[in-house]
């Protein structure tokens, strides 16, 4: 079975010859028992291990588990053998939480919030032959039916990711003279790209990556900070689930930077892929098209949530377009109506330029897929990167083609992808600057656009992972 993670993530440090004691940083926990003597280990026919004490007593040994957190911290391997048990993130886990809620006393219950990404919604819409609005409403209906309390759309948190990216770019463009590493600025919403950059190129490339949080993690801040306050709950009393088009988002949610130390809770507790939601529907024996549509929830009291909204600029969030148009306006006073893309060596590598009187003012690109990321990084290393901003995504064709999206064995994948793209594009696009709810939140929740709060809740950091020297280094 092929690994479900993105290509960029799969290629980071796959090693056939790992000596677990040398490469795996998860410390081997040995439970010391009183008494001396050597215990023997017996292997049963079914493969289970039993420790046999000197007195003849036996104890079944636990299977070692590696959680996603450990996985992320380690530079030795990444899920190459498919034996990493993802214990904390699956639709099974969500069901456990919902079941626990049913049995628990009111004070012990957790508020369950699900945030659905526009890409997952488009994939489900294609599968069930529904339009995006009906899909959003019926999904809300489904989740509430099984015990979820609120269902949000990450297109809302994406407003913040885009605004922060725009502001960051303008700031760095203006500060070029003072800082050599200011540009190019590289998009940060894709965790497959971030993991690859941290593990392979480390301190060289990290200063170029935007510190703006991805929509998933901004939603984490919104739900566990703003919404929690509104509901008069501590963040640990909320169980926040996101629905995403890929598995890499599970690793993003597990990052220590997104763990709230004070309340010992993650900003995002569980990431389900589109496929896992589909499995959940099947297990609950629910036919999505047959459900009664429910009204959509909104994080802003004022906004009417009649239909879902989206952003222009493609199925991966529209970072290039938003940053480009904002920069053109802010830096040069030029209004760009339509952004024209010029494909380069392949359809996943395209560029956009802003020219005036023969001079190139802005030179942006989108680079999707590992081969294009490679070329970009190599050019950067040689000082030959001509771009000011690059929207980098690990998956060819972007997020709509993520590894967690629904497949249709009876349809050519190219045709399915085009259908999903069409459905995604049907949703009304909004400009983040024009959304009143967003401005209110900047004012009342974050105390201003460049505040300390905004920096803490809407931005993040990156950490280069040092490559351990192979303990088993057979020097050929």
């Amino acid at each position, binding site marked *: 079975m092929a690994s479900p993670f993105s290509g960029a993530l799969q290629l980071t440090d796959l090693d056939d010859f790992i000596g677990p004691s040398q490469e795996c940083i998860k410390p081997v926990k040995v439970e010391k028992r009183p008494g001396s003597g050597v215990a023997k280990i017996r292997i049963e026919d079914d493969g289970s291990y039993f420790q046999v004490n000197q007195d003849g007593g036996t104890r079944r040994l636990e299977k070692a588990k590696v959680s996603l957190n450990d996985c992320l911290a380690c530079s030795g391997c990444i899920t190459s053998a498919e034996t990493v048990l993802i214990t904390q993130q699956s639709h099974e886990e969500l069901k456990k939480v919902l079941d626990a809620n049913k049995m628990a006393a009111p004070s012990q219950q957790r508020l369950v919030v699900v945030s659905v990404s526009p890409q997952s919604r488009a994939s489900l819409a294609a599968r069930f032959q529904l339009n995006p609005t009906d899909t959003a409403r019926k999904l809300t209906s489904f989740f509430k039916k099984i015990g979820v309390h609120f269902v949000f759309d990450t297109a809302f948190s994406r407003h913040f990711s885009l605004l922060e990216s725009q502001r960051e770019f303008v700031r760095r463009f203006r500060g070029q003279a003072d800082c050599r590493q200011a540009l190019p600025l590289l998009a940060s919403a894709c965790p497959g790209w971030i993991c690859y950059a941290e593990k392979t190129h480390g301190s060289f490339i990290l200063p170029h990556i935007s510190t703006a949080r991805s929509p998933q993690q901004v939603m984490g801040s919104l739900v566990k900070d703003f919404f929690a306050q509104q509901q008069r709950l501590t963040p640990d009393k909320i169980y926040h689930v996101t629905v995403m088009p890929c598995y890499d988002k599970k690793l993003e949610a597990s990052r220590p930077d997104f763990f709230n130390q004070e309340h010992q809770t993650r900003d995002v507790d569980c990431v389900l892929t589109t496929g896992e939601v589909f499995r959940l529907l099947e297990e609950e024996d629910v036919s999505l098209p047959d459900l009664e549509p429910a009204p959509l929830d909104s994080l802003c009291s004022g906004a009417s949530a009649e239909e879902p909204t989206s952003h222009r600029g493609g199925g991966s969030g529209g970072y290039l377009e938003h940053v480009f148009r904002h920069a053109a306006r802010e830096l040069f006073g030029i209004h760009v109506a339509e952004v024209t893309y010029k494909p380069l*060596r*392949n359809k996943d590598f395209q560029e956009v330029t802003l020219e005036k009187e023969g001079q190139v003012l802005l030179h942006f690109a989108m680079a999707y897929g590992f*081969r294009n990321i490679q070329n970009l990084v190599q050019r950067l290393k040689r000082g030959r990167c001509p771009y000011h901003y690059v929207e980098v995504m690990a998956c060819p064709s972007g997020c709509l083609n993520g590894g967690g999206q629904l497949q249709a064995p009876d349809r050519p994948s190219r045709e399915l992808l085009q259908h999903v793209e069409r459905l995604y594009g049907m949703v009304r696009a909004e400009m983040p600057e024009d959304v009143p709810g967003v401005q209110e939140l900047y004012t009342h929740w974050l105390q201003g656009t460049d505040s300390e709060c905004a920096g803490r809740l809407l931005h993040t950091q990156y950490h280069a992972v040092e490559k351990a020297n192979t303990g088993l280094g057979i020097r050929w």
Partner: protein
Amino acid sequence: MKDSLVLLGRVPAHPDSRCWFLAWNPAGTLLASCGGDRRIRIWGTEGDSWICKSVLSEGHQRTVRKVAWSPCGNYLASASFDATTCIWKKNQDDFECVTTLEGHENEVKSVAWAPSGNLLATCSRDKSVWVWEVDEEDEYECVSVLNSHTQDVKHVVWHPSQELLASASYDDTVKLYREEEDDWVCCATLEGHESTVWSLAFDPSGQRLASCSDDRTVRIWRQYLPDNEQGVACSGSDPSWKCICTLSGFHSRTIYDIAWCQLTGALATACGDDAIRVFQEDPNSDPQQPTFSLTAHLHQAHSQDVNCVAWNPKEPGLLASCSDDGEVAFWKYQRPEGL
């Protein structure tokens, strides 16, 4: 059989180390060797002996595993365990490293130039095969990263005339790749070997592919186009490859390399039992079920594993070999009488 493989000479190419691979330049006048001493040596003739004309020593941090000449003969590519591939430009007897290709996660095992000269393929222990494109300014860009194999990829080789790439792997399979729109795709997987496939060689026409393996057999595969006369099934518009011959029982250890002479059609193998063998197709053999006979078997060709055999592209019968013993040997192969 008569002594059809005669030793012409030996050179201690990579002393105190292994010699891993050899490559003749397209003109057949120079032989490049590479080894565990991290060096590449270029050999040429002076009278009757082979002398070292250049040493390329500043390119790699670890073993150089393979070398390959560009079709024009002006460039040499070297694949190293240091995870990089160097491109050297030839300027008479001097070689200058003009580019270093990075990106593989660990040891690069092989490098090969496409017949057009514009494309290069590399493969690695990271299980991937990369296709690179070179432009007029000698700039290399990655065109595709292929993750079809499930284990270490040992060797890549291009078809002699088409833009078709073949790779051999520790996962016991051979895979073939071609371009499709703006990317490369795996268009065939050849299964049959029972262990690591170490090397590959196309026949002069490109219709057949020979593979050699740790399972001590050589397999010959034939390409069948859609709607072929023999009724071999093809899926869609991609050709099918079928194993039409297996040479077993000849080798007592792993077969590390195989070379198909583009001039004579002779097939040479390099074996872990220190021997070199040559096979020829029988004259009246059925093209769909060919038979090959062993026409030369030189025991103790080297004092250790033979890692590579390479036919000279211009002089029929001239064969070079190299070994873990660090030596390069030159041989003259003559077809035995009566065969």
